[in-house]
């Protein structure tokens, strides 16, 4: 049984500051090449190694990240 996490990012509210990118212990998050309607390169999960630690959500200045965690 492994603890797996998943993050859901509100792309429209994300400002692409990349503070979450450095906060993630497993380097799951990166800025997208695409932009949202305001022109920001929003953050997105690029790997399936999220452990649901919520470090990204805790440092997000705009509170755009929701974190889910489950034992699978």
């Amino acid at each position, binding site marked *: 049984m492994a603890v*797996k996490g998943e993050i859901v990012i509100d792309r429209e509210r994300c400002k692409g500051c990349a503070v979450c990118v450095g906060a993630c212990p497993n380097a799951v998050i990166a800025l997208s090449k695409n932009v949202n309607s305001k022109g920001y390169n929003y953050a997105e999960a690029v790997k399936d190694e999220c452990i649901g630690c919520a470090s990204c959500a805790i440092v*997000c200045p705009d509170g755009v990240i929701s974190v889910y965690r489950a034992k699978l």
Partner: protein
Amino acid sequence: MNTDIVKPENLVYSRTKVLTDATMHYCPGCGHGTTHRIVAEVIEELGIQDQTVGVAPVGCSVLAYNYFDVDFQEAAHGRAPALATAVKRLNPNLYVFTYQGDGDLAAIGTAETIHAANRGENITMVFVNNGIYGMTGGQMAPTTLVGMKSATTPYGRNVELNGYPLRLTEILATLPGTYFVTRQSVHTPAAVRKAKKAIKQAFENQKLKKGLSFVEIVSNCNSGWKMTPVQANKWMEENMFPNYPIGDIKVEGKLVEGIGLDRLVVSSPLSVK
């Protein structure tokens, strides 16, 4: 998206309901957003949303009342502690906090800040220090470090011309009216957790009626410093933290052990590396 994991019962973190749905106007990566969020989370955790009155400042955080789903008053520039004094004295059972930046609290509002602290008002003050006037275009603030470039000190702050930087938090800690004085930051997950704990303590202290609780958050201003948010956080660690040391200064009305005169009285000017 893995639908096995993304279910309401597995939710471990989401945006607090004490913040409104308005998108904050702050620049990407600004510490104000994080500080707003942890103050709102503390209000939610303490269950005091309907008993809290915030006082907004003038500066970048002037629109704070749009983002918190609690009652708010807007103070004249620098006068938030005076307004908070009135709110608290007229409604002693409410939780009252001010939310101010360094241009508001440490410059134009120095008198109000020092006297509210010296009177021992039972309020919480949240002070976001980024060493610059962010809203008006990055001019020098009282907290700007010696050698730090700003719009009005393009060659770096010069002591002969601009005077010395001000460490107001240490000054307030020496006053008998303050009960809890601490300095925190919000640039890493660990720092955010500590800052949130400090803000929670500062709100809980209001029940004790023993004096003012003051939480300084050393923050970045990536637009004013002309850096990316990540670079600004690094610059803050290298230059702001040696001059504005993180940690508790006064707890339960007593100076923390090890905080001696050398810490309270700045002997050499606070300057960039």
